[in-house]
């Protein structure tokens, strides 16, 4: 046997996966959970850019972004409950959260953030809801009564109090949104046993890609919904969103690449396994898809859309396509991190394989269902909370 042939065979044969590593335990559901909470956090940040940082051009989507965030937040627990071996014991995380476990933060961080988000929506929408209540009847009237906590008072005094509260909630909402997604990053970043996950950059990367996915989600859904409703688009708003998307994406992409580059440069003994992973099972999903197509192209295109004076039509279509690509990029990033990280065996000598099932419990069909549910819920929410200021019966009477 020639030396080269022998060497090639030797390399091919040195694949050894620990017996318990053959099965990938965190699959599609755990890919979806950070994806959904990321979109929530990002959408909230869009709203806060208006409510806290007073970026006026974002006013048209300021309320919509909150409702959008709520629609996705409502289903953030769905993939987790589907994944747990004992979902009926899920409350254990609230009853006895372990102080050393990042995952234990889930129950309280999620609940606290949900309360802040719901309260902020209720306070911002209160005058609108009161006005809608007066026009409603039957079930809707009851719903509006509950949502306004039975109070009709929209006097100047009441609205001033509301305004202060809203400002406060929006302000604390930002660190809370960061915590909601940052802790997810730490769930991975704190696992020293996994060389791909264990990095202090992980919470930062997750948070930045969350912002990116949220902003992209707002742009894409804003364009689609407004077009479907036959309403005009606020191009100033879209252009601002694109600029923010570009800025966040620069940071996100740089950190993602920095992490990998540091590993490659320092070349500790883990690098060999990581290298085999990135140039092996993850070659297509990472280098070709996530980086080559869905990072590099948006990176350049967003720059062009932000800096070059282009027509509204180009910005609208380009912005929508790029936003869609960004949403795909973030999903791919979650896939490559969650599933890719587990493909590397802790034997440091080989890779497992993963093929998601179609109709299995954590397979492709349940994943699609879980991603459709927030959109359905968003539609239902639109019947209760008017997205757009021009649909609001009280606009002009209140200071936003």
């Amino acid at each position: 046997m020639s030396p080269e042939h022998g060497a090639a065979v030797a390399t091919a044969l040195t694949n050894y996966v620990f017996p318990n590593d053959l099965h990938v335990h965190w699959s599609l559901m755990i890919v979806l959970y950070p994806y959904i909470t990321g979109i929530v956090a990002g959408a909230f940040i869009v709203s806060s850019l208006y409510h806290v940082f007073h970026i006026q051009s974002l006013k048209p989507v300021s309320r919509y972004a909150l409702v959008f965030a709520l629609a996705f937040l409502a289903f953030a627990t769905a993939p987790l409950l589907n994944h747990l071996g004992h979902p009926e014991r899920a409350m254990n995380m609230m009853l006895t959260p372990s102080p050393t476990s990042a995952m234990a933060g889930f129950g309280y961080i999620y609940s606290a953030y949900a309360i802040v988000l719901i309260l902020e929506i209720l306070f911002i929408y209160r005058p609108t809801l009161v006005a809608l209540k007066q026009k409603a009847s039957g079930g809707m009237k009851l719903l509006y009564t509950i949502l306004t906590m039975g109070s009709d008072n929209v006097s100047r005094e009441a609205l001033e109090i509301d305004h202060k509260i809203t400002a406060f909630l929006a302000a604390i909402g930002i660190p809370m949104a960061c915590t909601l997604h940052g802790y997810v990053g730490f769930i991975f970043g704190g696992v020293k046993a996994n060389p791909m996950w264990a990095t202090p950059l992980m919470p930062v990367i997750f948070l930045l890609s969350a912002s990116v996915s949220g902003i992209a989600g707002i742009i894409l859904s804003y364009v689609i919904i407004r077009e479907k409703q036959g309403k005009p688009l606020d191009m100033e708003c879209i252009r601002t969103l694109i600029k923010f998307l570009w800025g966040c994406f620069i940071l996100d992409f740089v950190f993602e690449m920095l992490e990998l580059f540091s590993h490659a440069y320092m070349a500790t003994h883990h690098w060999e396994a990581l290298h085999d992973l990135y140039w092996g099972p993850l070659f297509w999903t990472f280098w070709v898809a996530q980086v080559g197509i869905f990072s590099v192209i948006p990176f350049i295109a967003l720059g062009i859309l932000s800096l070059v004076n282009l027509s509204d039509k180009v910005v609208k279509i380009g912005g929508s396509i790029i936003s869609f690509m960004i949403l795909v990029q973030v999903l791919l990033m979650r896939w490559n991190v969650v599933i890719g990280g587990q493909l590397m065996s802790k034997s440091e000598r080989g890779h497992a394989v993963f093929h998601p099932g179609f109709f299995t419990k954590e397979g492709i069909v349940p994943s699609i269902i879980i991603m459709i549910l927030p959109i359905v819920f968003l539609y239902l929410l639109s019947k209760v909370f008017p997205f757009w200021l021009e649909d609001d019966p009280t606009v002009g009477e209140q200071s936003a």
Partner: protein
Amino acid sequence: MPEYRSKPYSHIVRIVLLLVIIIVAGVVVRGKVLPKSFGEYGHYRGDAIFDEMKRPVRNGTNASCLVCHPYIREMHLNGVHHTVSCEFCHGPVADHVKDGKVIAKLPKKQGKEIRRLCLRCHNQIIRARPKESIKMISMPQHLEEKHVRTDHICNQCHNVHAPLMWVKQAKAMVGVEEDSK
């Protein structure tokens, strides 16, 4: 100036009240639902230790088999297989005896199964076995060396419970001098 039924801050009071009720309810429910022994020794349910202690033992030791199978015991304990577990070939005692009664027979290996079991330990071909640990042979060379037909199963010359017993007896009886290798 329109008259409102509620005060300007009524809704805030109600929301705060609702939150307080939820939190208090949560604390009360937690108190009821939490297992009593949780936190007794650390951040875990103390009774879990006793749960694990109470797990039924399934494998005995060789002593638990030989107490009822004394004939085998004589052979086994005096033979070179005295470190081999009965339950490795026959299965765990818990599948055989429960509450002092026999509930099922344990399988006895037959024929080719026996040879496979012997070779699991004694096959020299695997090469990873330290010689100091165990005597190894290769098949069919071992049979050829002993001038035995190569379709023989190991237990035709070696009592599985005391592998050298018959071999030694044969040598003593027949007075054969082997050309040993």
